[in-house]
């Protein structure tokens, strides 16, 4: 880690240097020091044991309404980097029509630390590898015909130091832990995967090694192995219109793609139109648009304990906060940064984040959570005559306005006459239109079924950035959903 005293002195000096330059209205400087460890085992062998260290800084300069940014890892040339950022801001003025208006904020001096019970970097590498090997062994013991077993663990710690020319100085020590297991079974022309606790390397949180222990990888490994083999023999999921209950393992991506991205104010303003796309919410009025049924209550909550999108302050220096996005089905708030909020005359709600020192902060999801409802899980199932319970995402796609989506899941459990029959189907796909789908929700399970999942790879921006965000939800029921594509 950096020497905080020396760093603070240098940052203060560089910010004073920038502010003294001709035309400079505001500047901020962010230092990111990131260390990662990642473990991967496959078929009882170590596939990789990697670690990385990454240290650098980025300087953002606003001059006469234009922004310029420069990132570097050369700490001996901070003034030069500041000059580069200023030159970029001045070049930007050539095409400028609408000077950037930053929404107001307070001067803050603070330190934030992810609450951690067990520092994951103090757990020996041997213990981490042993956990993955044991999980693999249990999967293979329960299902010897498996073609592949696999496990991963990932740990990340970051010291983020942010300061601005107004006098703010914020240090954040952020810790993340994540991991998961999966099994693959193969016959000629067919491959099936079963994962735990979710696909795409499992689950992630701002937490310590206690999060990995609580996952109970070993307790779930035999079931994962067995279900993977059962899927290989299962029938293809039928196509048609069905009622569904969707598990949090899939709802996390449903929320991410069809709520999290459309509510980003930069997309609404067209900032992502040339790349990731826009939002169908660009023509709606907050407070009046019905996004879903009265059962749908969604918040953007950067303060939620353990969420992968939980932090103390965003990279504009705005405190983390909880924002009501959809209340009883009605859309209320976008998520925003200082520049996007300034463009529409509102206050930033603190979701500007960069994925490292070389990138600018842009609007990113914090934790976009579907709040728990009032139903027992069995009540949701009991309300379905003919349908499926879908678990764990396998594939995703949505259009550039975030309306037309299609998801594939690992497994569909049959529901007949209000009961899970025990029969499973492979290759379930469902598709829909965002507000129609959320409008068809007629029940969300209660708090005891609510689960938090982290998404560590949300792509957006140019140059590309990968954000870490979270999504909590409980199983929810949806009526009349299009399942499968074989009948088209």
């Amino acid at each position, binding site marked *: 880690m950096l020497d905080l005293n020396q760093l603070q002195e240098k940052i203060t000096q560089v910010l004073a240097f920038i502010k003294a330059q001709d035309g400079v209205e505001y500047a901020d400087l962010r230092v990111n020091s990131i260390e990662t460890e990642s473990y991967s085992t496959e078929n009882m062998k170590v596939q*990789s*044991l*990697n670690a*990385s*260290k*990454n*240290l*650098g800084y980025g300087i953002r300069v606003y001059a006469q309404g*234009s922004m*310029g*940014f*420069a990132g*570097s*890892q*050369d700490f001996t040339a901070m003034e030069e980097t500041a000059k580069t950022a200023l*030159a*970029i801001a001045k*070049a*930007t003025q*050539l*095409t400028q*029509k*609408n000077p*950037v208006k930053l929404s107001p904020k307070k001067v803050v001096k603070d330190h934030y630390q992810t609450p951690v019970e067990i520092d994951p970097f103090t757990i020996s*590498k*041997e213990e981490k*590898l042993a956990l993955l090997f044991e999980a693999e062994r249990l999967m293979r013991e329960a299902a010897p015909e498996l073609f592949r077993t696999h496990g991963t663990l990932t740990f990340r710690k970051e010291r983020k130091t942010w300061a601005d020319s107004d006098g703010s100085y914020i240090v954040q020590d952020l810790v993340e832990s994540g991991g998961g297991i999966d099994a*693959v079974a*193969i016959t000629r*022309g067919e*491959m099936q995967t079963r994962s735990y606790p979710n696909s795409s390397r499992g689950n992630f949180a701002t937490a310590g090694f206690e999060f990995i222990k609580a996952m109970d990888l070993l307790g779930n490994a035999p079931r994962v192995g067995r279900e993977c083999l059962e899927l290989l023999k299962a029938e293809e999921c039928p196509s048609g219109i069905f009622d569904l209950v969707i598990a949090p393992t899939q709802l996390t991506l449903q929320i991410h793609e069809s709520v999290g991205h459309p509510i980003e104010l930069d997309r609404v*303003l*067209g*900032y*992502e*139109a*040339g*790349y990731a796309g*826009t939002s169908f919410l660009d*023509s709606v009025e907050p407070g009046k648009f019905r996004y879903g049924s009265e059962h749908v209550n969604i918040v953007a909550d950067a303060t939620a304990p353990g969420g992968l999108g939980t932090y103390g302050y965003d990279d504009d220096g705005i405190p983390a906060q909880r924002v009501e996005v959809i209340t009883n089905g009605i859309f209320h708030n976008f998520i925003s940064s200082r520049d996007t909020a300034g463009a529409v005359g509102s206050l930033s709600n603190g979701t500007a984040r960069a994925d490292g020192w*070389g990138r*600018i902060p842009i609007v990113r999801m914090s934790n976009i959570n579907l709040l728990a409802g009032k139903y027992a899980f069995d009540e949701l199932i009991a309300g379905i005559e003919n349908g499926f319970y879908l678990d764990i995402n396998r*594939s*995703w*796609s949505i*259009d*550039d*306005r975030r*309306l*037309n989506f*299609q998801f*594939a899941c690992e497994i569909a459990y049959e529901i007949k006459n209000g009961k899970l029959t025990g029969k499973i189907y492979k*290759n379930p796909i469902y598709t829909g*239109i965002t*507000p129609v789908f959320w409008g068809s929700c007629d029940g969300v399970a209660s708090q005891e079924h609510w689960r938090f999942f982290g998404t560590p790879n949300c792509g957006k921006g*140019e*140059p590309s950035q990968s954000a870490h965000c979270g999504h909590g939800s409980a199983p929810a029921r949806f009526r009349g959903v*299009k399942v499968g*594509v074989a009948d*088209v």
Partner: protein
Amino acid sequence: MYNKDQIYVFINKALGFAAGYQAQVAVSSSAEGLSRIANSEIHQNVFEDRTSLAVTIIASHKTSSISTNVLSDEGIQAAVAEAIANLALLPDGEETMPLVSEPKEMETRRFSQELHDKFTVETRAQLVAEGLSSITEPYKAFGQLSYRRSASGMGNSAGIRRYSDGNSVRFTLLISDDLGGTGYANMSADSLDAVDMAGTFAIAKAKAEANKNPIELEPGAYTVILEPLAVNNLLGTMMRAFNGGMVNNKMSPLTDKIGEKVFSEKLTVVDDWTSPYSPGLAFDGEGTPRTKLTLIEQGVAKDLAYDQASAKKAGTTTTGHAGGGAGRRGGASPANVIVSPGEKTLAEIIAGTEKALLVTRFHYMNPVNMRQAILTGITRDGFFLVENGKITKAVRNMRFTESMLIAMNNIEEISSDRKRTGASFIPGMKINGFHFTGKTSFSDTGEE
């Protein structure tokens, strides 16, 4: 960023700290300026100078990797020491891959001083401003113009050194009217004579102007004419199937199909780093000289891409397609894909078509089932109905879900004109029976 001599100093230092071990060191250095455009003005304008070093230590059938951007002597020494220490934690692996030892020196140098001088932060803004002057209300421009300079080196304890450098310009442009009718075009260039800003503005604008008052079509099977960007979207995903390791692991759709006719006989695809249409590196991430691959010859799936590890498992030799970066398990994939042309231009194919849907590009593609090569995605930024040889109407965007093993068998025509897209050189294609499985209706969105 760093030059060849400086990069080799880092490599030699790391190898020195790893004395006594088999070791491989890679250094990647880049500087990129990117001007992002939204609502016909530059709204984000950034620069980043980044260098990282990755060291891989190999001993007793074990491989350990660390990457760092802390390039002081202490930083490099710490990375090497940690990689060595990690060896003790690893169980014995399979056979250790030997380090590449010949030829001793190779380099690929493609840096253009002319391009570098032209694309300063100021001239980049001027070029954008000139282009924007051709866009008038109700149209607006979105996209990005970037200039990137890069230099990479690798070396190993067997004594080889590899170096490459280059620079390139990338421009992507979306033109949109106030009702959401969009048009898209892009350009990538590694020499000044390949830069065509005005041409890119003209194509995107013409598409946006044609993309008005879209009709709505029902899902079903349609004949499609895919422009090169759309073909590249499909083939880019399909090229993963030619990873020799995936085929050997039975996870590729080409498992048990090599040597068989899998695609239309009209389709021939090679991977050739020497081609002027798709210039690449002379060596891969392990330092192996790249070989040319005939991936598909008249519909027959032939060569696969291998690195050392996947080749060893498959009982063959590496083709020089290993990825770079930390570790030596990046897998192997085709890097410079060239599709053989047909006889008619894309315009002639359109002119000779009674009825089809013309696709500019696809958005957010993902495999639904990679083993069966089933992909899904949605049309974007120019989707048109072709009737009696002419583009007659814009069509509201639709979702496709289709197996590439079927679509690439249903190729009716391939265009003679091709477009460079990244490291690929791709024609347009006319494909029959292409399945669109979803639409976005006017009525169910609350829009319009």
